């Protein structure tokens, strides 16, 4: 026998369960980033130069190789690390050396970093070294940007198109 009082109890239990589902399925809000800030994100993969120069093999050396492996040049597979520097309003924002990936250290180096920055006008400089040089950089770009709140400003790099890409 279901008594009216029991039905009321059930209704309350269902309402409480439904309210819990309804509320926590989309609340309370989570503040992931400060809504008054902007963000700079740098992300790309780039293969730095090889560790060493290729060496021309002598005829005897070539003959010694298995027929399907014969080639005129012997190139070391490993790559150099890349060095990245970011500067915002003449203050260092990031500096890092990224190792090549892969077991043989012959893959691209990868970066994925984000930085919260204040909104408004900024002077941004990005530099990258991917060669054996010990001072200076192989690529450098600068830009004056104006960042809006919650803007996601992206820095990419593509050597084929001449270096850094700001979006």
């Amino acid at each position: 026998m279901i008594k009216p009082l029991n039905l009321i109890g059930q209704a309350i239990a269902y309402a409480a369960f439904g309210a819990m589902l309804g509320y926590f399925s989309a609340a309370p809000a989570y503040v992931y980033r400060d809504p008054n800030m902007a963000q700079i994100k740098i992300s790309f993969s780039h293969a730095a130069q090889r560790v060493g120069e290729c060496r021309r093999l002598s005829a005897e050396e070539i003959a010694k190789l298995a027929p399907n492996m014969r080639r005129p040049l012997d190139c070391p597979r490993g790559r150099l690390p890349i060095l990245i520097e970011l500067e915002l309003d003449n203050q260092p924002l990031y500096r890092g050396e990224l190792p090549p990936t892969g077991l043989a250290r012959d893959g691209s180096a990868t970066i994925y970093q984000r930085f919260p920055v204040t909104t408004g006008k900024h002077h941004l400089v990005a530099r990258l070294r991917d060669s054996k040089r010990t001072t200076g950089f192989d690529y450098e770009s600068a830009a004056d940007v104006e960042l809006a709140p919650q803007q996601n400003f992206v820095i990419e790099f593509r050597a084929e198109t001449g270096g850094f890409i700001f979006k």
Partner: protein
Amino acid sequence: MTDYVISLRRSGRYAFEWLERGFDAMFGPSWNPFHQLGALGWFFYWIVVVSGLYLFIFFDTGITAAYGSVEYITNVQWYAAGVMRSFHRYASDALVVVMMTHLLREFVMDRYRGPRFFAWITGTPILWFVYASGITGYWLVWDKLAQYVAIATTEWLDSLPIFGQSIARNFLHETTLSNRFFTLMVFIHIAVPLILLFIMWIHIQRHTHPRVNPPIGLAVGVLAMLLVLSLVHPAISQGPANLNTVTAIVNLDWFYLPVYPLLDHIPGALLWAAFGAATLLLLLTPWLPPKRRRPIATVDLENCNGCGRCVADCPFSAVVLGPRTDGKPFTHEAVVNTKLCTSCGICAGACPTATPFRRASELAPGIDLPHVPVRELRERTLAACRALSGEARVIVYGCEAGVSLSCLSAPGVAALPLPCSAALPPAFLDFIITRNYADGVLLTGCCEGDCFYRLGIRWTRERFAGERDPRLRARVPRERIATCWAGITGSASLEQSLHAFRAKLKALAPLERRTPLSSQRLTEQASSND
């Protein structure tokens, strides 16, 4: 450590029983949602599948069109597809709630150790699959929450050193967004729940009569609740994703995404390690500490005719009928699977040869528990009966998983423990009452609707009602039998029931016995058992 686990379980069980008592009052024991958590899990799963299939008709799997199609579902076709979307979301959330409560409850009720480890071990991957289903689901809407989930999840995956390329790079900018990746997510969101279904099916493989459908009253209530919720508070999107901006504030689904905020404070790799460790701990839980196993049921072929009642009643698929091996003119014999037997004794309670009317020397059922054989139960019963005096003499049989029997000490009352209430062959009640060893028998045990050995209370009721073999004979006056399903927190209600039962017995006219026993035969009978 061991003591800690035991006391944790025990306090948990008190808390659950206390809460469930309240729900019993509202829903009645058979509709009590706490007794139906596994069944509710299945029910919510099916609601999610059906609503998902409907949504898929209108969903556009292209990343740029996905958001628009979900907006159409929500706003234009709000009365059907919109309601389905809300059902899909809220039933998924409810699935998490019942699953977590179910996990906790199985733990505190200690139904995960010994031979019962299997459901626990197969339940653990279910957690991963449920969460993977939910997270990929939020991804597909391609609104601001989806953007947040996509970026946070891929950044988290990137913290694992298994993917050569950064996956988060896919979500760098509007121009890097790829349709292919989105299609992959759609595929995962369909494949993962399908695998989940398969694991859920394996999860209940070792149970006979698994409860996979909630009782109709509960199902209707749940559907009505979801419908009202869907109309009052429909599931909506949070504005289209735009990778040129940062989603600064998101409304998280805290059922599926509670750990995401942690990723802003601790390294992703550490969180993976924590989840890995937690999963490992869950997988080891059934052996922390291991259950001390009691002797398992053994078959005595001399007394087994292969009737199959033990097979029908074993809640854990631990007995099967095998071909006859001893040359007796029966086709089958009972065979116990040592790995599955929980020593509940329900099989002995089902065996037609387990009848106390046979003399002590002959009483050996076809299947029995070696440490608490039916013959010994008969002896203990007779000894207890002999000690009874006064009016309204009652024998109380209590299942060990239920309330403690120590509170019952009155001159006219004797209490005897059983491994499970259904381990008592119904013939014992016939024997005690029709032979006038006592005036009534009371059975107590776990809470109603929630037998520790799953089916003990159900079989007891059906046997007493004459609906299931072995039936309690019609000649046994039912007013001399009482049950009190009290759980471990029910000593007060057990005392009350006993009191009321004895008052009722006192008011009954003396039993007209078919074969009244002279006092001389009574003594003879008793001494023959010594």
